[in-house]
């Protein structure tokens, strides 16, 4: 990797575009993601920009326990994201199903069965701090050897 490429990748890792998708949660984790955008945590000062367009995103935040309505949709959404990309599971629901993982429920956790998950943030809900540090920790590895891989 040349000097210029590594410099470009460093700059890229300082401007992460994030899309979030709720695949059937109780909205608790959505509110914690919303708190990241608010001035108290202010996600944009770390160079993270949240908008819900998967075609522009680098990082996908997956929230929720995967209800049947998301079959085939989540996979398509993941394929729309251009390389390099990473998915972060926010909360217990995408990891284990949390309180919904009981007999005779329709949810189908974990989400890692359906799309590759890079980072898991446990908690019901996780603190905005934990969500932020997860995004910041995944940012350098997403772009690390991007142009070489390509």
């Amino acid at each position: 990797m040349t000097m210029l490429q590594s410099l470009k990748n460093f700059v890229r890792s300082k401007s992460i575009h994030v899309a979030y998708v709720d695949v059937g949660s109780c909205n608790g984790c959505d509110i914690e993601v919303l708190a990241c955008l608010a001035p108290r945590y202010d996600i944009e000062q770390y160079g993270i920009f949240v908008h819900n367009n998967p075609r522009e995103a680098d990082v996908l935040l997956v929230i929720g326990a995967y209800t049947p309505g998301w079959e085939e949709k989540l996979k398509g959404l993941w394929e729309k994201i251009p390389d390099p990309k990473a998915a972060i599971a926010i909360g217990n629901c995408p990891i284990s199903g949390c309180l919904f993982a009981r007999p005779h429920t329709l949810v189908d956790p974990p989400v890692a069965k359906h799309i590759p998950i890079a980072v898991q943030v446990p908690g019901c809900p996780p603190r905005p701090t934990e969500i932020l540090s997860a995004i910041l920790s995944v940012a350098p590895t997403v772009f690390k050897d991007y142009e070489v891989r390509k």
Partner: protein
Amino acid sequence: MPLSLVYYAKEFLRGEWARKFLAAKTAPLEIPPYFRNYPELTGKTCTHHLFCMMACPAPGAIDVISTPEGWKPRIHIGHCIRCGLCVEACPNGVLSSGRILESMFYDNTRLSFSFRIDVDQTKCMGCGNCAVACPVNKLIDAQMSHGGRASTDDLLLKVSEGKCKVLHVEKCTGCKTCEHHCPNEAIRVARLLEAVHAPEEDI
């Protein structure tokens, strides 16, 4: 004009100003010490009452395993919802999380468990599976016959006159073994969890 240029240069070329301008501005991301995080072991001896597992609302979040040092509760991250009920329910203070133990001490509150056994007399066939399976009965009368009949009245459950009778409900430990062994779903164990203020007996 030159003077103001010097002034601006002095103001903006300071290292600390440039660092503050370019880097993140809020305080470093820290979890405050009072945050009710995942329960941690305090090192006190677990007596295997399993109240933590009974109080836990999340499936598969806590279990108590046998180790060479004795029983130990184990928290499963990814299942645990950090509600702190296991910390409050434990009679020995084996777990701690945030300020729960301190506030329980100052407020003198505790979660107490009690159990109620309901036998549906129309469904009960008097087979005695519940009385034979009951681990409390086994400690009191190890020679109980297969029909659940016994001569002593100290038992928790007993079959008399062809029906299951609950004799001493206060001896129940809430394990629900009787419920799992009933072929007819006639016996039900209810776990009652109540928050008690200023309990009479102390820990």
